[in-house]
């Protein structure tokens, strides 16, 4: 009986637990044939290329336009211009609607229209439920063809970018890759430079309009639409929709060539508030077009792609030095990309990790990879090949991209073949030829106080200065024509105000005003009296809720009287006061008579006035009246980043035959900060500078 029972148990055990094969014994059926959809492609009568693909799985319609431009076309003194153009193209609205109205309209339909800028292309996309796809398409067209670039949204974009620049070193993880790219491509080339505060001062609405006009035209655009529609109907729709957009422009020039020379070395930036060192190691790589692309891809994969790569095995699994570590042959379509290795490790193991990476790199260059490594790397690519075709969007995107960059239609299959053909000898050869340790820029960011071995164990360390550069005092282009134009504009302003002689006769003034700070800036109301005696004595008396504040300066020094007492004017306040004196009305509009000042035209209705000492202001004139209605200048508040101040003047009234503004709107970094209403201006009161300089008597007990 026992035996029988045992046998039954045994049998049922076997039955319940079917034998499970080893993974090595699994047999795989051939993969079902992939249906690769063929997009319809044609050219609209206005020259725009179109690709269409039906996909009826869900009631959605999507579109993606590629515009042949890129941030490589940014002018060196207006870096970021292309990005601002793409952003404000969407946010700044169209002739008929503001950007905010478009936001609302689209979101009411749960739809989107977006615009973006890349290095070598710009894009505009939309996504809509089928039920609203016609409306969304017309919004898409409106944004693409009739953008208005409203100033307020450019101001917003500039404010945002200024904040982003201020924050760019906060996340240590983001620094090494950025700095490595700058070093590899050269920090002064379009491939390597970055947007600085300074650039923001040079970018004006007109620049965006010009950039848009130059690059956004039908012949320069490819549009792919995919989703739940019928191709013939969509074709007709698009023909009709874009029929009236016929602007033309000359062909877009080629992108600049990559011109960088290798700048190998160890580069280090200190960040005290991290426990890890983040690193990026890189050198110039290649394009997808070159014949060794497949072999390089396989070599880089074996070295550092995926969980089973050598770097992962060695540095993460065996040494436990890193969570994140990878190598990549990052090829580009049309210009050399990079070969790069990146990751992070605890501060203590910084140097050891970099050394271990070097060992792996040298192994790749000195010994053939094993047959198993090669097979697995190739199989990884070939077996996952089907994922290139798992959505119509991917297919359409690829077809468009091949045409955009001039690749053969069957490029992907050529690549597949090339991967199959890669040998161990190929991998060794390309590693030797292209993974060049002597060219590598090694960028590390971390806290050196916690390093185990110092970084200098590896060689000479170049320190990267992460300080964000303050805007230099910019200069508009200065030549005979701009000087002439500047004088003409000032003369017109002098005329409009009542004549140069009358202005020159003003030797002092006294002005009373009520300043209201914007609620966002505290909402305070301040009574002011401003007095000036030519050439450079200035005194401001202010009544604040906290008490009286008086400031006086003769342009070289001065004092401040606060409720707490009197003190010498601190340097930042003096600097600010000197700016005020420089921009005093009567001397400012007569700047063409002052040898220490340079006046250049900075646009059809603007001049820039500057001194050798670094004072600078942009004055804009009313096109109709010629009056100087705006001053734009930079000011550095105590300890803060420099801000751009914009004063706009209105309510012009005549005082002793001279037109002067009685209302001033003050904005800082594109945001209203206060408003002043002038109640009285008296000219030539006869007061002397000595009287202005009198300090208030100390309060008696």
């Amino acid at each position, binding site marked *: 009986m026992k035996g029988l029972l045992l046998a039954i148990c045994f049998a049922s055990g076997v039955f319940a637990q079917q034998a499970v094969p080893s993974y090595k014994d699994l047999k795989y059926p051939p993969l079902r044939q992939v249906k690769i959809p063929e997009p319809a492609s044609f050219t609209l009568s206005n020259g725009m290329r179109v690709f269409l693909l039906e996909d009826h799985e869900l009631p959605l319609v999507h579109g993606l336009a590629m515009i042949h431009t890129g941030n490589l076309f940014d002018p060196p003194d207006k870096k970021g211009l292309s990005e601002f153009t793409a952003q404000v193209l969407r946010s700044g609205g169209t002739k008929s609607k503001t950007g905010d109205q478009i936001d609302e309209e689209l979101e*009411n339909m*749960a739809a989107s229209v977006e615009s973006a800028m890349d290095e070598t292309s710009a894009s505009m996309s939309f996504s809509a439920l089928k039920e609203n796809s016609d409306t969304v398409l017309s919004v898409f067209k409106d944004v693409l063809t009739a953008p208005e670039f409203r100033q307020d949204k450019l101001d917003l974009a500039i404010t945002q970018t200024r904040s982003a620049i201020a924050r760019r070193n906060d996340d240590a993880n983001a620094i090494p890759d950025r700095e490595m790219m700058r070093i590899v491509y050269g920090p002064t080339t379009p491939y390597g430079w970055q947007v600085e505060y300074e650039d923001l001062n040079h970018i004006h609405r007109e620049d965006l309009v010009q950039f848009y006009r130059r690059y956004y035209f039908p012949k320069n655009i490819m549009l792919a639409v995919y989703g739940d529609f019928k191709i013939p109907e969509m074709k007709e729709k698009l023909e009709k929709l874009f029929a009236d957009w016929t602007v033309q422009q000359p062909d877009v020039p080629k992108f600049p060539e990559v011109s960088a020379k290798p700048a190998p070395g160890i580069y280090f930036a200190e960040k005290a508030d991290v426990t890890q060192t983040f690193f990026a190691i890189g050198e110039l790589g290649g394009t997808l077009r070159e014949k060794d692309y497949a072999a390089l891809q396989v070599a880089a994969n074996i070295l550092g792609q995926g*969980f089973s790569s050598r770097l992962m095995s060695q540095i993460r699994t065996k040494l436990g030095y890193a*969570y994140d570590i990878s190598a990549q042959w990052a090829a580009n379509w049309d210009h050399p990309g990079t070969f790069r290795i990146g990751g992070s490790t605890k501060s203590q193991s910084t140097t050891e990790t970099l050394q271990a990476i070097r060992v792996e790199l040298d192994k790749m260059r000195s010994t053939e990879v094993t047959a198993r490594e090669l097979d697995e790397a190739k199989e990884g690519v070939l077996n996952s090949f089907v994922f290139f075709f798992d959505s119509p969007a991917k297919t359409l995107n690829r077809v468009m991209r091949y045409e955009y960059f001039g690749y053969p239609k069957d490029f992907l299959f050529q690549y597949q073949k090339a991967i199959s053909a890669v040998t161990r000898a190929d991998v060794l050869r390309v590693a030797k030829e292209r993974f060049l340790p002597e060219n590598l820029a090694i960028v590390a960011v971390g806290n050196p106080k916690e390093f185990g071995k110092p970084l200098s164990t590896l060689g000479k360390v170049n320190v990267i200065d992460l300080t964000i550069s303050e805007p230099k005092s910019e200069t508009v282009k200065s030549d005979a024509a701009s000087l002439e134009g500047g004088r003409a504009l000032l003369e017109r302003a002098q005329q409009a105000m009542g004549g140069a002689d009358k202005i020159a006769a003003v030797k002092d003034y006294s002005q009373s005003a009520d300043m209201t700070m914007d609620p966002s800036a505290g909402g305070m109301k301040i009574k002011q009296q401003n007095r000036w005696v030519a050439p450079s004595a200035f005194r401001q008396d202010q009544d604040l809720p906290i008490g009286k504040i008086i400031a006086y300066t003769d342009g070289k020094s001065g004092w401040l009287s606060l409720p707490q007492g009197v003190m010498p004017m601190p340097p930042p306040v003096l600097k600010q006061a000197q700016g005020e004196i420089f921009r005093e009305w009567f001397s400012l509009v007569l700047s063409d008579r002052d040898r220490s000042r340079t006046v250049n035209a900075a646009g059809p209705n603007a001049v820039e006035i500057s001194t050798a000492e670094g004072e600078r202001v942009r004055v804009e004139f009313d096109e109709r009246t010629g009056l100087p209605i705006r001053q734009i200048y930079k000011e550095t508040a105590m300890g803060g980043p420099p801000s751009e101040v914009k004063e706009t003047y209105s309510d012009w009234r005549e005082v002793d035959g001279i037109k002067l503004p009685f209302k001033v709107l003050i904005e800082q970094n594109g945001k209203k900060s206060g408003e002043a209403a002038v109640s009285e201006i008296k000219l030539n009161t006869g007061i002397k500078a000595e009287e202005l300089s009198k300090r208030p008597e100390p309060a008696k007990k």
Partner: protein
Amino acid sequence: MRVRLLALLLPSLLCAQSLQDFEKKVTEFTLSNGMRFLIIERHEAPVVSFHTYANVGSVDDPSGESGIAHMFEHMAFKGTPTIGTKNWPKEKAALDHIEAVYDKLDAEKRKSFRSDPKKIEAIGAELKDAIATADSFVEENEYDRIVESNGGVGMNAGTGEDSTNYYYSFPQNRMELWFLLESERFLHPVFREFYKERDVVREERRMRVESSPQGKLVEALLATAFEAHPYRVMPGGWASDIDNFRMPEAELFYKKYYTPGNITIGIAGDVNPAEAKRLAEKYFARLPKAPLPPVVRTVEPKQEGEKRVAVETPAQPFLAIGYKRPSQYSSDNAALDVLSDILSGGRTGLIYKELVRDKKIALGAGSQDTFPSGKYPSLFLFFVIPSSGHSIEENEKALYAIIEHVKKDKVDDATIARVRMKLRAALIRKLDSNSGLASELCAYSVNFGDWRKLFTELEEFNKVTSDDVLRVAKTYLIENTRTIAYTQAPAEGGAK
């Protein structure tokens, strides 16, 4: 009037319709050991996405072992007695030896003041040797290599507060391989290279939390807002807990929580449900039935007043404010979701419009209706990245003004209609990716008992009125239960 009514009805009609269509594509079955499967057919391309949703997360970490759920997630890639070894019997003995030595080390350390540093050093060296011996039997990363060389893409895993997720996609013909690998790793995982991986996990914490200003801020916010409930610790755990993990602790955790009844699997793509069921029986029925693990018993006590916490960092400022809210099972859940969308959805959200677009005092700002997760009472979160030159205080004030506004005035019908539209479209957009579907259906099935909630939830959203929104804003966005966390520059001369 009639037109309006129709428009209101339209979304729910459409949702019922899409559910009916969708239901035809879903096959659901449960093995006798309790493991649940959701199969979603999408035959557009010969690929399949797999998602394993384990109903266990960092809330289940035992005291002193914060981060152990995450640690096990890492161990799930280390292989089995047949995958990842050169010689299993020898490796097994070596692994056991490591633990014996480590026990000795711990025993000596527990003597506290009386422990002998020399002994500790000696045992430490012994431990190092033991680990080296065990490592010599390891076939490195074999599990990963099998997946990757067979064309697996998107392989990864993640540990959250309430769940742990494992996922990747294969070409359709490798389906059986997935069944084999996935069942093996949950049937008999081998915790090899445990102490090296512990270092890796520690590095992950350094990267995500210690070296990131936002990471530090969130850690402080949670630790302050929650006093008792495990949501107070981030899934990564505390550094010192990680540094002292022992392998048997992770093993115990696995045995307790990775029972078949606690695991749900989503498979989406070019899959034949009958074939999937056959393979599920063949491979996963091997997991022995076991009782369901315990649930968290600690309930967060009522918060009795506003809390503030500052994190010093030289980085530019961040602000995060969390208000206590009930769990995802509250009848107010849908209204809170709608409220969050009104506050911060897209470019029409009130917070974006006010702080970013019009006042320009923030570079970015928004809200999240449930944070850090939803199974237990959590936070309704606001976050603000101030613009350069604008302070935390200024932004905090402006944010409160918006909150007061939604507590005082009802939103208009157009806003409600817009949010409904957006939620419906968001659902449709979720349906076009295998990996997204596999994960969403698992999450809804585990969290709400039925994957259909993904669709029926829309009806709940459609029932939310402006009165409901006003009511939940008034009920939950109150000073008494809020926690404010912000970063600030270190004081002069202070710590760097």
